[in-house]
């Protein structure tokens, strides 16, 4: 009643204190996603489609701003007012493990299969890349950017470490695990982006690697 949803600051949107750690922010974001996802029982009939899209977009911006230290510092400067000052000093203990934690399968916003598939079928860039015989990390990155999916989202969905995903896109073979594992990673990566056919594309990626053993 006090404030409209779109006038809340990023901390209020995610229901975290201004001094929250990255871990708290992440779990707050997960909790919010459970509530606002289109298939969530809680909010299914509460919002119209436009309202939901707006809320999800707001939450995404809030999350990706706060999770990034540089951007967060910049954002904090734009905020002023008593509530920021109040919380800055006190730091409460952070729980690093929550025993009630729900199985995290629906935590991050699902990359909507249907939405992604239409994007893939419409994009010429992606079709071009997929038709190439040699597929490199940069190509994967281009596909991902074309679809507008963040590495963070893939990381949450596939549970593959962020630095692996990064190295994968940058072809840094020395940082990556053995080929058997790598193959699994690439498949998971492609699957989360709804690229078809997974096996074929991943084989091409593996074959294009510079030092194949």
């Amino acid at each position, binding site marked *: *009643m*006090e404030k*409209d*949803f779109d006038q809340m600051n990023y901390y209020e949107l995610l229901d975290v204190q201004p001094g929250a750690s990255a871990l708290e922010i992440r779990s707050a974001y997960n909790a919010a996603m*459970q*509530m606002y996802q289109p298939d969530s*029982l*809680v*909010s*299914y*009939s*509460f919002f*119209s489609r436009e309202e939901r899209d707006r809320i999800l977009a707001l939450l995404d911006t809030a999350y990706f701003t706060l999770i990034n230290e540089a951007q967060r510092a910049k954002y904090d400067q734009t905020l002023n007012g008593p509530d920021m000052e109040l919380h800055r000093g006190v730091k409460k203990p952070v729980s690093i493990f929550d025993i009630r934690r*729900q199985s995290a399968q629906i935590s991050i916003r699902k990359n909507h299969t249907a939405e992604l598939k239409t994007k893939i079928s419409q994009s010429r860039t992606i079709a071009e890349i997929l038709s190439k015989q040699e597929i490199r990390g940069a190509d994967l990155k281009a596909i991902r950017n074309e679809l507008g999916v963040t590495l963070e989202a893939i990381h949450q969905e596939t549970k593959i470490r962020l630095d692996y995903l990064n190295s994968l896109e940058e072809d840094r073979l020395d940082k990556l695990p053995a080929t058997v594992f790598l193959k699994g990673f690439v498949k998971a990566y492609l699957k989360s982006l709804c690229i078809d056919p997974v096996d074929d594309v991943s084989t091409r990626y593996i074959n294009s690697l510079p030092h194949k053993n």
Partner: protein
Amino acid sequence: MAHIWPIGGGKGGSGKSFLASSMARLLAKSGKRTLLIDLDLGAANLHTMVGVPYPEKCFSDFILKKVTDLGDAVLTTPFPDLFLISGAHDSLDIANLTYEKKIRTLRAISRLDYDYIILDLGAGTAYNTLDFFLASRNGIFITTPEPTSIENVYRLIRAIYLRRIRHFFSASDFKKLEKKVRERLGNDSWNKPENIVSVIRGEFPEKFALIKKDFNAFHFKLILNQLRKQDNTALGEQICKIIKKHLGINVDFAGNIAYDEHVHDAICQRVCFLDRYPHTRAANDLRVLNRKMSNAFGEQLIFNYL
């Protein structure tokens, strides 16, 4: 004065009458003089759940002035300290209670001398239901964890919200407000009280302060009924959170009631579920809820119509 607990939930079959009769039974058992009023006008059937198969008097007698005092329409039940105003023989057009009769009923209810009065309301969002629900600040919403039921409970909450806001405006001011909201936020926005409130906040700050104060004094509760094993137990909390965040209304989540086939059996046998199957999970949940709620409610009670 009595504690009044109106029990509402948008959709039929969500367990309003079951909850009303069970809560009343538990309160009576703990020695509180408890009165159940079947205000599901036009679809009353509460008497079957509390062991009064053939009620001799009913709510209509009061409406049709066969009895002058609502207290004379009260029936005793087989259970000590539990009383009932039945709707079994209500006239068939009772669902369309006129405004004067509704006010007369509300006044009469406020004069009844009991420890607890539980109002079993009907499904839907007719003005009668909303006004009976707003007879007290201690309204209880009940829903099942199904999208249809949750959708209707949201609708009911929004309808109650709007009905309450309406009390703060004269008819002409309310028309003006409606026009402003539609101009500002589009035609659909009138259906969402949260939009209306955001306009009130900007346009009528003193009214907004009143409304805010008023809503802060409400202690709504939400109960999730028929929760099956596979259902998300955190659902109730999440529903309350979304209501708090987007409507600005405080609704406390009171608890879950487990789904139990025995409830159906007890109703078919026309006996009280809590007596017939006292050791089931649902019965246990009801007892826990009752204990929690009879502690948590404040004294206050309101009637805007008096």
